[in-house]
C-alpha cells in the first residue's frame, strides 16, 4: 500500500485541533465575556470571587487559537505547525490539570468530592492531549514532516 505524504497520526492530530480549536475559542471568549459582565453587573462580586475561572477561560481561548493556527500550518505541511499543535496540546494538559487540582486537592472554592474520583476524571480528560503531545515530539514524526515539507 502507498504510504500517505503526512503520517496518519499527525493528520488526525491536525484535524482534531481544527475542530477543537474553534469550539474552545468560542467557548473561551463567551465565558470570559460572561465573567466580565458578571463582575460588572453584580454588586459585591469581584474577580477574586471567581477564583481561577476567568484565567481558565482566557487560557482556553488562547489554546484554541494556537491549535487552529498550528492545525492549518500542519495541514499545509509546515514544520512550524507541528510546534504550534504540540504547544496547544501541552497547554490543554496544563489547563485541565490546574483546573482539576484547584477543584480537588488544592481547592476551597467549589470543591469536588471525592477527591480521587475528581483527579481521575481530570487525568482521563488530559490523557488524549498528553498522548498527542508525546506523539508529536517523536523524532520519526519530526523527520517525516520535515521531509514532506521539503518534497512539496
Amino acid at each position, binding site marked *: *500500500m*502507498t*504510504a*500517505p*505524504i*503526512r503520517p*496518519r497520526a499527525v*493528520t*488526525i492530530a*491536525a*484535524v*482534531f485541533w*481544527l*475542530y477543537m480549536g*474553534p*469550539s474552545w475559542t*468560542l*467557548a473561551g471568549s*463567551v465565558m470570559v*465575556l*460572561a465573567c466580565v*459582565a*458578571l463582575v460588572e*453587573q*453584580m*454588586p459585591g462580586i469581584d474577580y477574586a470571587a471567581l477564583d481561577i475561572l476567568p484565567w481558565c477561560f482566557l487560557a482556553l481561548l488562547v489554546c484554541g487559537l494556537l491549535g487552529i493556527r498550528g492545525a492549518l500550518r500542519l*495541514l499545509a505541511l509546515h514544520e512550524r505547525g507541528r510546534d504550534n499543535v504540540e504547544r496547544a496540546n501541552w497547554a490543554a494538559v496544563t489547563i485541565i490539570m490546574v483546573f482539576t487540582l484547584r477543584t480537588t486537592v488544592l481547592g476551597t472554592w467549589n470543591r469536588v468530592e471525592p477527591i480521587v474520583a475528581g483527579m481521575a476524571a481530570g487525568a482521563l480528560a488530559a490523557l488524549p492531549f498528553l498522548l498527542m503531545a508525546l506523539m508529536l515530539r517523536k523524532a520519526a514524526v519530526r523527520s517525516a514532516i520535515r521531509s514532506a515539507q521539503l518534497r512539496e
Partner: protein
Amino acid sequence: MSGAPWPYHDLADQQRRRAVQHTRADAWRTAAVMTCLLAPCGPLFGVAALWLMRGIEAKIDCQPESQADAILKTARAIVIAGTGLGFVAVLITAVTMANVALQLAFQLLQVRQ
C-alpha cells in the same frame, strides 16, 4: 545516459498522486469522526461519510484514480455540510445562552436593588 529520460517518471507520478489521496482520506475520515462526535445531527453526516469511505485504501491502490477521487469528493461534501450545520447550531446556542445569562444577571440585579 545523461540525456535519456527517466523511464519510471509516470509510475513515480502515479505513486505520488496515490500518496496524496491516502493523506486526504486520512484527513476526511478524521473530520467525519469529529463531525460525528461534536456537531448536532453530526452522526447523520459523519456515519454517511464513514460508510462511503469504507475500504477506501484498497480502492486508492487498486482502482482507477477517478473512482477514489469521486468517493473522496462526495465524502468531503457530506462532512463540510455536517460541520457547517453544526457550526451554525453552536453559534445559535452560544448567542441564546449569552442572552439568557444576561437576562438572569439583570433579574438578579433588580432583585438585589
